[in-house]
């Protein structure tokens, strides 16, 4: 617990003389904090979930579980490649004490790094409540529960006698809020000890409310260990994604953007805020009512102080959200209702694997048509040879691979394929890439 080291160093310097009165916690103050940490740990342990090399937490008595997307991503990806790809993804999870169960993937938010699971067995399950992350203050003590270095679940036998399903609890403080860092748009930064294995675990107040899900740490010296800077996805962002996740049917939920709106962030110390530089004609941004010159003041009542904050805050809303934006238009406040469209940057997925076709014509011969993908839905078959993509001749596999980098979800491709000695034209609309 780094933050208290300073207190002690100071008290040591003055302890022998006893003359100086320095602000240090008394036995009583420490005892109060200690009691709340012990109580929270006791409450949190039954709601903790061990998930394949990471952590999770039960958030309602029906057995809904939150974790990071990156904890389950590989399992999902492997499942989708397997024979039962159409079946829902179920994972084996365990609880403190060793009880095991199956949890089904309900929905995933890869950009926000959150996944929602649900226990297959009906509840009730001990759980913790999601709190209000906007009420969190810098310096506030927070508690993390997780499975760093897999010590709690003994997946690799470090100690001679292995530990029995007890996660690790650590204490620290909130270091900063609204960090746009390490791929998280609006993270809570904390010095609580979180290490590989803590991902997906809860960040709690001393009252036991979940204010974040721990997911990333800043490391140095090539060592994958905590260095005092950890990032958690805030609970309010997660709360906005809960309903879309519950309705995702095992699939993916997207973040979004206000299409057609171009902004310029503040230029530093003096001027605050974000100004609209351009609004594309016919775009959702224009339809919402933004005008060039507007100063964006807040989104949903939350202050926007610069461009990074604008991007970060916007990224905490799921695609399909309606958000209330306040702008300053030539000195007068204006309300703009904006719609969050799926981000243009969601990568497109065709759903085939292939190799360079032999013979003088060349092209890409399809070896695998991925189950549930756009190619399968469009009727592509193993053995088809793709010879043209959007009018351009494909000679070898690399031509297809390099084109695929630019693909976006929703984009339509026109393919010319050879099936036997017949040539066919197929139009395929790309899906978002599954299992990021």
């Amino acid at each position, binding site marked *: *617990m*780094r933050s*208290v*080291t300073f*207190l*002690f*160093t100071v*008290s*040591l310097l003055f*302890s022998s003389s006893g003359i100086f009165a320095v602000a*240090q*916690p*008394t*036995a*009583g103050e*420490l*005892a109060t*904090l*200690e009691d709340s*940490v*012990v*109580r*929270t*740990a*006791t409450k949190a*342990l039954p709601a903790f979930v061990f998930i394949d090399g990471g952590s999770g937490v039960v958030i309602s008595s029906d057995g809904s579980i939150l974790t990071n997307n990156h904890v389950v991503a590989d399992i999902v990806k492997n499942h989708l490649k397997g024979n039962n790809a159409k079946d829902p993804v179920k994972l*084996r999870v365990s609880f403190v004490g*060793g009880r*095991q169960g199956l949890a089904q993937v309900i929905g995933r938010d890869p950009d926000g790094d959150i996944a929602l699971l649900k226990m297959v067995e009906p509840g009730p399950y001990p759980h913790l409540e999601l709190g209000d992350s906007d009420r969190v203050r810098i310096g506030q003590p927070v*508690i993390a529960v997780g499975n*760093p*270095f897999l*010590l*709690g679940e*003994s*997946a690799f*036998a*470090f*100690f*001679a*006698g*292995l*530990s*029995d399903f*007890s*996660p*690790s*609890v*650590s*204490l*620290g403080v909130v270091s900063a809020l609204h960090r746009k860092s390490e791929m998280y748009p609006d993270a809570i930064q904390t010095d*609580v*000890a979180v*290490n590989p294995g803590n991902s997906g675990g809860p960040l709690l107040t001393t009252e036991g409310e979940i204010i974040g899900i721990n997911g990333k740490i800043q490391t140095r*010296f*090539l*060592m994958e*260990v*905590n*260095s005092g800077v950890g990032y958690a996805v805030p609970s309010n962002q997660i709360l906005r994604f809960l309903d879309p996740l519950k309705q995702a049917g095992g699939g993916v939920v997207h973040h979004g953007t206000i299409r057609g709106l171009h902004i310029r962030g503040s230029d530093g110390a003096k001027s605050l805020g974000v100004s609209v530089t351009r609004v594309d004609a016919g775009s959702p941004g224009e339809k919402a009512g933004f005008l060039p010159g507007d100063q964006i003041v807040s989104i949903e009542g939350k202050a926007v102080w610069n461009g990074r904050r604008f991007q970060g805050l916007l990224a905490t809303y799921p695609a399909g959200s309606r958000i209330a934006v306040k702008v300053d238009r030539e000195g007068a406040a204006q309300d703009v209702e904006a719609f969050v469209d799926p981000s243009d940057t969601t990568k497109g997925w065709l759903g085939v694997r292939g190799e360079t076709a032999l013979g003088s014509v060349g092209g890409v011969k399809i070896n695998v048509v991925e189950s549930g993908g756009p190619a399968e839905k469009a009727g592509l078959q193993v053995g088809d040879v793709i010879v043209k993509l959007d009018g351009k001749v494909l000679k070898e596999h690399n031509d297809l691979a390099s084109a695929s980098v630019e693909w976006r979800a929703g984009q339509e491709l026109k393919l010319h394929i050879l099936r036997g000695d017949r040539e066919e034209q197929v139009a395929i609309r790309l899906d978002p890439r599954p299992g990021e």
Partner: protein
Amino acid sequence: MRTGLLPWLLLLFALDPAEAPARESVRLDPDQILQAASRWTVAIHVDREPERPSLPRRRGRSLFGTPRILQEYKSRPSGPVTGLLIDGAGHVLTTYYNVSGTLKSVEVTLPGWERRPAKLLATDRSDDLALIKLESIPDGLEVPPLRWGDRDDLRVGQFVVVVGRAPDPEHPTATMGIVSALGRNGGRVFQTDAELNYGNVGGPIVALDGSFVGLASFVGHTYPWGLNSGIGFGTMAETILSVLPQLRQGENVPAPRRAFLGVGPAEQGIMAGEGVRLGEVSPGSAAELGGLKAGDVVLSIGIETISDFVELRRAINRRQPGDEVEIEVLRGSERVQLKVRLGSRPE
């Protein structure tokens, strides 16, 4: 241990009669905790033969080209380490890590006294403990007996303070954290997030009531969690007291025997999610004596469903030799429940 604490409770009354007698509510001010603990915390100076950096093994890649920063991180730093003086005879407890390697000399700086030679008596490697002894005691050194904490009082979330004497033996350091987990290393060690570095391991871990609950351990350049990562451990007071008599005699404590079942998987037997088909059952092993047979499919051990051999091995490793376990197998089409008493892993 409980009777041993009674005189100490009375002494506390003598020092501060205003304090309530109940142990739970006796929590000291940070000053008092530190002053009490740092009296016994000593600096240990170890001179040893040079060691190689503890770098992860890489296939085909030599040390050459490894970033210098990583080499330094994975090497033992120079400077003193920490230990705990535990009696008037000059016994000093520290970690096995602090005295590992080929030693040339060991010296101890007691607070307020000059450096003096000591010798390594014995080690308990699996608990990361070592006992050294001063070769001479300074006249007038007063060492009241330590107040060891009771294992049953330890709670996840409670505060602990770790005291060290590195890098400067004159000035103790303190880091504070909580008990992160109990039950590590078969219940012999607890985990703490109080920062531990390569200098303060071997130092005492003290609870808010001033009792010594453990010795800072299992942090060093050879461990994957590095230093100051919030992953640290304390070898529990009870563990220390249980091996002290042996260590005092100069006897190294051997590594504990591991539980052993005595089965191997069948070649095509590892069916993910459906249990482990046994290919062999070692003659005379716990498995054979318990009634397991080749061809049985192990479905569960205790409350844990077993889906592959890794899980089976894990379930056995988690237990002690002599533990009785319930093993459910599929034999043909029948489910059979067996009670097996685990043996000891042969060396």
